[in-house]
């Protein structure tokens, strides 16, 4: 059992997952950000691998990605940073990026580096389900690595069930049909979708992401799932903050306690 599975076994609700883009704001901030997020009481950390063409992401993550790449972030360095952070924290960590990054690095080598660095799972939004099943499922299992696929309000039930069958760790419930970083409050259509997901009694826990930036959004997400994923709002906070540690603690506090 890896750290993600253990987390969800111990904690069923109110999970807070924070995303940040590795290499942003500073090239070597990765370790500090992970450690401080852990100290601030975050449950799960999602480390974004900056990509030149992040199709599923909105402006905030795009911008942070190009800054990170300009700062010189690359995968070898990122694995070293995560490995170093792993010596100091037991917080579950997933890496989020695009399939081409894994393909070019070499999937086997990539997965080995993940295990070595103490990464617990991956999110690759443009990796097709069938390709994962045919090419990677066994290697992921052997490495004890989880995989989270995305579900959106427009995903049909039979596909949600298939995604649940293939995912291991949690399901990433996209709150809205929009790229990351929007400021949506939940509509009736979204609430229907949350209820529908709940009713399917999936084997994986569900985390809701996209468009969550405040305690209100976090609470709403938590009342309809196992927890929330926050990305763009955190990145904006890092951009505006002076001191990394105090910015992170203030941000997490504002989400949890208002």
């Amino acid at each position: 059992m890896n750290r993600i599975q253990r987390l969800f076994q111990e904690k069923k609700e109110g999970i807070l997952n924070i995303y940040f883009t590795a290499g942003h704001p500073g090239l070597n901030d990765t370790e500090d950000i992970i450690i401080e997020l852990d100290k601030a009481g975050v449950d799960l950390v999602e480390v974004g691998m900056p990509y030149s063409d992040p199709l599923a992401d909105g402006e905030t993550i795009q911008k942070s990605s190009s800054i990170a790449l300009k700062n010189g972030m690359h995968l070898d360095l990122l694995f070293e940073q995560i490995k170093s952070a792993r010596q100091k924290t037991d917080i579950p960590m997933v890496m989020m990026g695009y399939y081409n990054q894994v393909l070019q690095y070499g999937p086997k080598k990539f997965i080995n580096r993940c295990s070595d660095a103490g990464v617990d799972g991956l999110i690759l939004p443009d990796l097709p389900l069938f390709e994962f099943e045919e090419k990677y499922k066994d290697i992921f299992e052997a490495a004890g690595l989880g995989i989270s696929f995305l579900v959106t309000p427009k995903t049909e039930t039979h596909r949600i069930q298939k995604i649940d069958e293939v995912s291991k760790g949690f399901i990433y419930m996209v709150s809205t049909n929009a790229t990351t970083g929007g400021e949506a409050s939940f509509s009736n259509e979204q609430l229907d979708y949350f209820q529908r997901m709940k009713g399917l009694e999936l084997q994986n826990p569900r985390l809701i992401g996209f468009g969550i930036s405040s305690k209100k959004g976090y609470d709403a997400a938590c009342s309809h799932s196992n927890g929330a994923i926050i990305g763009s709002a955190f990145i904006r906070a890092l951009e505006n903050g002076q001191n990394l540690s105090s910015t992170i603690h203030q941000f997490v506090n504002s989400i949890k306690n208002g």
Partner: protein
Amino acid sequence: MSNYEIDNRGFYGKFGGAYIPELLYPCVEELRSQYESIMQDEGFQEEFQSLLKDYVGRPTPLYFAKRLSKYYNTNIYLKREDLCHTGAHKVNNTIGQILVAQRLNKKRIIAETGAGQHGVATATVCALMGIECIVYMGEKDIERQAPNVKRMKMLGAEVRPAMSGSKTLKDATNEAIRDWINNPHDTHYIIGSVVGPHPYPDMVAKFQSVISEEIKWQLKEHIGKENPDAVIACVGGGSNAAGAFYHYMDEADVRLIACEAAGLGVESGETAATSVIGSEGIIHGSRTLLMQTDDGQIVEPYSISAGLDYPGIGPLHAHLIDSGRAEAVSITDAEAMKAGFFVSKMEGIIPAIETAHAFAALEHIKYKASDVIVINLSGRGDKDLATYVAWDNNEYQHNH
């Protein structure tokens, strides 16, 4: 069964497929599940064919280029796609896709454009059908293709600048895809080339296949046989080449020659010669050849020609080149510009700079005096006048 058709998952050999985030899945799946039946529908075909004839002006001529043939000591035929309404082959595809969009009940059209030809062709069909049109165009391309920006606006389209990355075609495509993710219900995305997730490469190739369909019967009228010895076309994403090659892909005796933009030179770091310096990967939802770093970051391309300034290549072309069926030729800016001026003076036809790359291939490839060579004259050069003039005055080179 052809070796060059897609399989049931949308792959040409190992290239193609649909590598898309779940957010895009419903949009693409709606199109994928319906495009074939829509395109085969009799009513659709009737309307498509009639618009190609009466609105686009098809069939376009296949013209025997006498002086050029004499100069190169061979037989050169030009497929005059530059005579299509709007000045390039792009409209063949946009006519087809607007009819598909109507049948999917879409009320809003988005498109990406590089040189602006696809943007103009999309704005044109949207005006024709009275549908809202938004065109994403790289900020850099907006500057260098100003006449086409004005045309799109006059046709009623909104042109939105893509400000990220290299501010060219790649980034305009990213922005269009993001728009689609954010507007899945009412919007159809008219991709302008044989790129993107399945079913786009196949659908666009089929709409453009009218080019080689016509070449076949026209060549038969000219010389008594359907097959030339070679077909030459320029390739960015590769839609005009896909159309010109389509009905010849299974005819092994016809050489298929794809001309890529080498920019300042294949090894210069300022190039768009994807098949030479690219490697297998994923761009815009398709597994294909693309220019990238060891870390899988997409490299920003360069070409004087906005329409060829793209770091990838359609998966069909990746398959044709990888399997050895097609030959790839790299043409530098200087070679293309020289060819553009030469063809203008020799045949009285000013080609688009994209198309000029195809003419420059005549300096690279081997052929016999008895050969019959068809060059796909994909677009006219009016839009490129400023660049041609700047080049002639040595001003363009000075700035690059």
